[in-house]
């Protein structure tokens, strides 16, 4: 968890900060929960701790995914020198623009003829 927070403080971008925190925080919380399960030798409280561990292990990736998608849709600027391999939204916009241009040329041809 300390490594994750150092990454949160030092890294230059929203996406890299999420990359640092989304994994380290979940793993550190799970480790502390396992240690408390070994300390508390009672079956009801161990069941509650297992439930809390399951909730954290599902909620934390969901929140990280939603933050990443929101940042991508809002167009948050990335760090200097980084690039996207498979840019889905940009490819979609390019395809829509090309279809609009072909439709305009077809209409223009019909109007001229």
């Amino acid at each position, binding site marked *: 968890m300390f490594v994750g927070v150092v990454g949160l*403080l030092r890294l230059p971008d929203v996406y890299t900060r999420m990359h640092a925190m989304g994994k380290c925080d979940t793993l550190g*919380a799970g480790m502390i929960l396992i240690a408390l399960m070994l*300390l508390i030798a009672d079956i009801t409280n161990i069941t509650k*701790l297992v439930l*809390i561990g399951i909730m954290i292990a599902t909620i934390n990736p969901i929140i990280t995914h939603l*933050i990443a998608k929101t940042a991508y849709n809002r167009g948050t600027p990335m760090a200097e020198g980084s690039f996207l391999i498979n840019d889905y939204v940009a490819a979609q916009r390019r395809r829509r623009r090309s279809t609009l241009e072909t439709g305009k040329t077809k209409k223009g041809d019909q109007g001229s003829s």
Partner: protein
Amino acid sequence: MITTVLYSIVVGLIIISLIAIARAYGGPSVLDRIVAMNVITTNVVMIILIFAYIDRSFYYIDVAFVFVLGTFIGTLCIIKLLREGHII
């Protein structure tokens, strides 16, 4: 012995939360602050559980569970407000 170790873990979690508060104070965008808030709430849940073992009062485990659920709903509402402009 084990109590000393647990208190040192609590101090480390508080230091981590202070570093995350520094990021939340000077973050360039809103999403950095959401990430830092997520980290702080996870640390608070861990501190509640450790104090539940130290004091031998295990009802605080239920308090931590409710805290996890409330934090999830709060962060979800903030993200929905950012994405769509309204909550309900």
